[in-house]
């Protein structure tokens, strides 16, 4: 499997580190990991670089994960990048909304590295 260029979007710096650690524990080889603390910062990143995978929180200040997903669809080099939402939300409605606006999967906190692997691996090398 090729080494991945990943973008992690979360307003919590701790959670960004945890997600990166989980990806590594899951056995995914990471070439580079970029971080953004909200959707607006993430949009700037995807306009500059091509990513293999984006993991994003839903609830964030400035621009939340749902708005980020909607905006992503209009960026040519980014709209096929798989986005997996990571959320504390137990609400089905928010998850369904995320999937309806382009998320390819979701992971609920708390999660294990194994769960991250199960959700992420099928999406890699499988452009939509």
């Amino acid at each position, binding site marked *: 499997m090729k080494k991945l260029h990943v973008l992690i979007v979360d307003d*919590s710096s*701790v959670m960004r*580190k945890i997600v990166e650690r989980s990806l590594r524990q899951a056995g995914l080889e990471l070439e580079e990991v970029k971080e953004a603390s909200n959707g607006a910062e993430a949009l700037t990143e995807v306009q500059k670089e091509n990513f293999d995978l984006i993991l994003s929180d839903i609830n964030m200040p400035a621009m939340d994960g749902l708005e980020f997903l909607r905006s992503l669809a209009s960026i040519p080099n980014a709209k096929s990048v798989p986005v997996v939402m990571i959320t504390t939300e*137990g609400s*089905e409605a928010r998850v369904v909304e995320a999937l309806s606006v382009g998320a390819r999967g979701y992971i609920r*906190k*708390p999660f294990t590295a194994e769960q991250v692997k199960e959700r992420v691996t099928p999406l890699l090398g499988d452009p939509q």
Partner: protein
Amino acid sequence: MSVPANAATAITKIDPHWKALMACAATEVFSMMAGMELQAYEEMPAEIRGDQTAMVGLAGALCGMITIRCSSATATKLAGALLGVDDPSMTIDAMGELANMVAGNFKSKISQVVDHCMLSIPTVISGEAYTLQVMPPTEGFHLAFRLDDQPIWFSLVVHS
């Protein structure tokens, strides 16, 4: 913090089962995210102490506060387990994130609450010389666990 427009009727009484749900929520978060097992006390410590308190507010069908409280040493250990590296500068953020995850996991286990309750961003208090008060009338409960032989408390206070 906004309340969902379709908010359900406010819950003003703590269900007797919620203690077990809180214990389950906390145990899952600590085990899955930090690889640390919370051990139950046979007898709860008499006094709630600890100079690190992380709190998350609840609004909507359930109004109140969920807190996690422990010593600085325990908080530092938790942060290290959560992040996989020892970085004391991340301890406060790690405590806040743990409280956020426990609160989110707890509310997801209560069907009347899950879609009708919002969480605030976490706040962390460092120090012991404070009193935490939710606008009365209130009710609540405290749970204590042992983590590497040190106590850690989880509390729910609800505006009733």
